[in-house]
């Protein structure tokens, strides 16, 4: 007997999504679905529109065509309501504050995951020793880890990660992969971009390769 699913709609469903800046097409039209427990890797060269796609999906840019559905609803601020964790190019953290203080601010805005506090989130990204050092004194890789700590701390179901591997060493890359597999196993979904230079390996996740450019393709 097939078990009736509580969530018949995929977490993220994109139909005919296109974005144009000053009538110049940036990407699209794109069609894809991202369900719980899945990981979607967006690949493309520099300037191919990966970041623009992520910002469009996060609702920060209005698409020029198509529609985005999040958990069955047309995307809006209420539909997302903190269920999305966005990690952009910029760390989204204040360089004069320590990782601990930055995360304290974020946990005032977003709901934190149950049983996870700031210390354990920082320990998860191997930054416990630098919890109280101002961010500007940390290396680029450590700053990236501080930004990644929000993935361990916050409870959002959909992760939108823009170049999460940038500036990271081998252990850092493994850390990102481990965080993503954990998130998938918990039923979360991840959409990440990469310029393709990093070996991305997670045997449990469905991989959809999305190549952006003038001719956008979706490959399973």
């Amino acid at each position: 007997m097939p078990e009736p699913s509580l969530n018949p709609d995929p977490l993220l469903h994109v139909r005919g999504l296109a974005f144009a800046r000053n009538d110049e097409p940036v990407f699209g039209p794109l069609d894809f679905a991202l369900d719980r427990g899945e990981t979607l890797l967006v690949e493309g060269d520099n300037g191919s529109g990966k970041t623009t796609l992520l910002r469009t999906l996060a609702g920060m840019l209005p698409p020029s065509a198509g529609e985005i559905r999040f958990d069955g609803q047309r995307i809006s601020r209420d539909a997302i309501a903190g269920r999305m964790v966005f990690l952009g190019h910029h760390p989204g953290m204040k360089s004069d504050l320590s990782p601990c203080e930055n995360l304290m601010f974020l946990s005032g805005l977003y709901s934190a995951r149950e049983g996870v506090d700031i210390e354990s989130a920082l320990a998860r990204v191997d930054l416990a020793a630098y919890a109280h050092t101002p961010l500007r004194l940390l290396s680029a890789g450590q700053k990236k880890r501080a930004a990644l700590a929000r993935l361990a701390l916050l409870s959002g179901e959909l992760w939108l990660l823009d170049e999460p591997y940038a500036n990271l060493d081998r252990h850092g890359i493994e850390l990102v992969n481990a965080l993503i597999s954990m998130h998938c196993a918990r039923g979360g979904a991840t959409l990440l971009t990469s310029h393709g230079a990093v070996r991305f390996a997670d045997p449990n996740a469905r991989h959809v390769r999305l190549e952006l450019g003038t001719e956008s393709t979706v490959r399973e």
Partner: protein
Amino acid sequence: MVALVQSETTVQTPGALTAARALLRRELLLAWRRRNDALFPVLYAIIVTALFPFALGPEPQLLARVSGGVLLVTVLLAMLPTLESMFRGDLEDGSLEQMLLAPQPLALLALARIAGYWLSTTLPLIVVAPLLALLLHLPLDVLPVLLAALLLATPLLALLGAVLAALTAATRRSAILLALMLLPLAVPVVIFAAGAVAAAQSGLPHSAPLLWLAAALVLALVLAPLACAAALRIAVET
């Protein structure tokens, strides 16, 4: 199996007031870390005020007569260069994206940001205002009216400036643009605030201009954060 895991993510979202408090706390912490920056507007105001006796001559009567207006314009000018960066840093380091995507009313976050700005940048100016008044021979019994006028006028200017700072956050060289847009808007504020001080100096009733300022402040407290939020959403689009 996936459906079973869903129940884990039902964690309470922090309330809007918690979020506003978290932002205000962050702002004050940042201001404390960069506390030397708060000195610049204060030093600027002191130096500009000290120039007036040199330029106009040291007659106490003349200085006392212009002191209210001079002080208000000086405080306004001291605020101008600091207003521009109100949302700039948050836009550049990605903090604004995090605030935008948070399940919190952006207008309330903007209000908390403006409150943080007022406490860290403008309040020091009000604290030194009695010293500036002394430099210009303002009669001591008028000092409470001056402070009341500043306490009403500066938040109003901060709120107006915040809307313009949000509108120009994504543009380069926005400092002069912001000044050009804010100064006309500041005219009524200066008229009422300086009017109250002048009225008190000549022994006339001064509560009417102060009440007008208070009414405008209440209006701005409600409307400016909403306008800020709309402008910030546009700033993130570019």
